[in-house]
């Protein structure tokens, strides 16, 4: 339940400051970045996402490790399903 999924920020929207387009292993989805308001992410940054919200910034190396952990936990499919499920605006 508290697992978080690593995602890379691919686009930000100046007119909507809390929205970002992220990529998670090839799937693109919009997420909410409001919980990073004190240190907003930039394009190319990696973040951990949980229920459609970015929780924290992480390094690329950590992100790749986390993706591997999810795969090992057998949760990658569930994670992908979750991300694909975000109806926050498809691309």
């Amino acid at each position, binding site marked *: *339940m*508290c*697992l*978080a999924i690593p995602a890379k920020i691919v686009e930000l929207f100046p007119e909507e400051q809390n929205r970002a387009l992220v990529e998670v292993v090839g799937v693109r989805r919009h997420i*909410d970045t*409001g*919980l*990073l*308001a*004190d240190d907003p992410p930039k394009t190319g940054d990696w973040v*951990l996402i*949980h*229920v*459609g*919200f970015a*929780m*924290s910034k*992480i*390094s690329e190396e*950590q992100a790749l*490790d986390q993706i*591997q*952990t999810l*795969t*090992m*936990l*057998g949760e990658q499919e569930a994670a992908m*399903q*979750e*991300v694909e*499920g*975000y*109806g*926050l605006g498809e691309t």
Partner: protein
Amino acid sequence: MKFVDEFREPGLIGKASDEIRRLADPARHYRFMEVCGGHTHAIYRFGLKDLLPPNLELVHGPGCPVCVLPMGRIDDGLSMAQDPNVIFTAFGDMMRVPGTHGSPLEHKARGMDVRIIYSPSDALKLAQKNPDKHVMFFAIGFETTAPSTALTLMRAKEQGIRNFSVFSNHVTIIPAIRAILDSPDMRIDAFIGPGHVSTVIGCRPYEWIARNEHKPIVVSGFEPVDVLQSIVMILQQLKAGEAKVENQYKRVVPWEGSRPALRAMAEVFELRPYFEWRGMGFISQSALRIRDTYAHWDAEQRFQVPGIRVTDPKAAQCGEVLKGVLKPVQCKLFGKECTPERPVGALMVSSEGSCAAYYNYEHRKSAVLTSIGA
């Protein structure tokens, strides 16, 4: 065998496992509680238990929000959605959880408008798309999830979306740890602290555990090597006669937590005087309700809540398992009346519950152990 090849650093695993054996006093029996259900899942999935000496026992804690939710709250939520004008939304984890008259999915089969959502924002969006309906979000989760619900409510208010409400079942982890420590039959020596909850609350809220209860707590990541390193750090503290809060998951968890997340929670939520936890009973100040400033979006204020109470069958010994007094398999119902398909007790409900994890993985005798030659 394939299993271990997937480990990022099998060498580190072996080293940590050796270090644990070196540090553990063979004359002592250790009981460490991993608070978070994500850790429980990882421990069983990777067979980490088998990398530990037999006198080091891992006790699986209360950090599984689906498991600790009383059945009466599910009944309450579903009763609000009897109104054909209401769309009931919840995370996938909730959909198969049994209420007295069936799970949300079974209610859907009987005609209730039940939708799985993956983000609270999606529930809000659904409300925007269905202005003639009321969308209710059945919110569960610890501090990892509560800030997302809070921000969603803030957005609903800012944008004036009034056909949306949240049934808050958010709980907080510290009072649950306190309840476990206060229990007279408590037998825990130290805690493996939750990783992602701590991203939000930071490490300070655990300081009383070290200071007042003299028990080490190490906030841990979820990779096998993280969990093993955290156990090494705990054993080092115990060996030195220390009790401190340490952060093994520094790469993700800041000591002070996340200010924006805490701000959002404080804006929207306040503590309930008490809340019932399945398997643990009533715990004071352990859950979050919606503040009056957000009353319009609070399902408990908008709807008649029956306040249903369903007591767990007496034979289910969930409380004892949670406190580490019993192992899952020592409960009278385990694997007989109580299985993941037909859960009787709280801990069999979700794959992160200790009984379900034990049931699903215990037969998988650690391939890890064999392949690293430990």
